[in-house]
């Protein structure tokens, strides 16, 4: 369960090494100011995904915050690369993507990139801090298979989609799933017919 940010929550970001990536300079500057305001002392900026890749090959970070909409290699491709091609110590870092607009054609690319969270621009400091805390408290396991490497994309286990048996050992039987989590297709059909 991810909790909303509480005013009295204590947070220490002084020693957190952050890589911030955005090819829009105004946006890069705004996010950098927000992070400095949070008390982050070790902030590295990259003005392109290519520059970020070079840094992720050379030294370790604790958190990556990247824009999605970038010319050339975009933020989704950067995360996908990072999960397999970066320095070993950087492969499983929490990643927060920041997006101005996500075209429908990019939705699956975003889902499959392997980031922990995506937030919308314009940036709101409260949302940024909340997502950093969520990333710090991340309790999802990593999933690695041919097509994906990143945090489990299921935020809660309500079981597989309606009508599906499920592919995981821990998928609950239909009878034990939370109310409304999955309605068998036949039940829908009956409702329409009645």
């Amino acid at each position: 369960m991810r909790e909303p940010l509480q005013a009295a929550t204590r947070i220490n970001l002084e020693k957190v090494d952050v890589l911030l990536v955005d090819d829009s300079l105004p946006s890069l500057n705004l996010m950098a100011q927000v992070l400095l305001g949070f008390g982050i002392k070790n902030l590295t900026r990259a003005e392109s995904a290519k520059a970020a890749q070079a840094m992720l090959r050379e030294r370790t970070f604790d958190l990556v915050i990247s824009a999605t909409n970038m010319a050339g290699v975009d933020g989704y491709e950067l995360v996908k690369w990072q999960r397999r091609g970066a320095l070993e110590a950087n492969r499983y870092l929490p990643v927060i993507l920041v997006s101005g607009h996500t075209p429908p054609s990019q939705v699956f690319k975003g889902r499959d990139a392997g980031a922990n969270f995506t937030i919308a621009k314009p940036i709101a400091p409260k949302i940024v801090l909340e997502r950093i805390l969520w990333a710090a408290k991340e309790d999802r396991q990593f999933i690695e298979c041919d097509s994906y490497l990143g945090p489990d994309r299921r935020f809660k286990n309500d079981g597989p989609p309606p009508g599906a048996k499920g592919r995981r050992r821990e998928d609950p039987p239909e009878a034990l799933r939370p109310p409304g989590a999955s309605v068998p297709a036949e039940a829908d059909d009956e409702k329409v017919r009645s």
Partner: protein
Amino acid sequence: MSTVRKFRAPNRLSMLVRANGGVMAKDALAAADAALEPLRAESLAVLDAALAEIEARFGRPAAATRASAAYQDLYTLALRIIDVSGFLPGSCVDQAAVSFCALVDNCAEAGAWRWDAVDVHINALRLLRTTDLSPDQRRAVIDGLNKVSQRRIGDA
């Protein structure tokens, strides 16, 4: 069938944020707001410059030349408006720019510009940026823009 591996990854961030010292979230947020303030004028100038460039290259004044313009150029300019529009809370400028991005993406997918819809978005952005409107009026503008941008060529 591919093999799936599940594992717990080390999370250094988790250990670092719990270190002694630090600040309360409310103080961190106040400090972030204060740190942003010096960028206000510069950011609004970026927004106005992007809007002016959109009008000059993609608006009615460019009617004779805009047909050859690149979809990506307009998309990037609209994104630039979104980037810095946090300094205009409640103005709905950000939402108008998001609708503009959706429109340009639809045009790019269809391979054809919809200049009437582009003009509507430019006018709406200018209106939202410069005119004193009530929240309801701003909401109505955005609702209208979303209908326009989601309409695809060929829709009735």
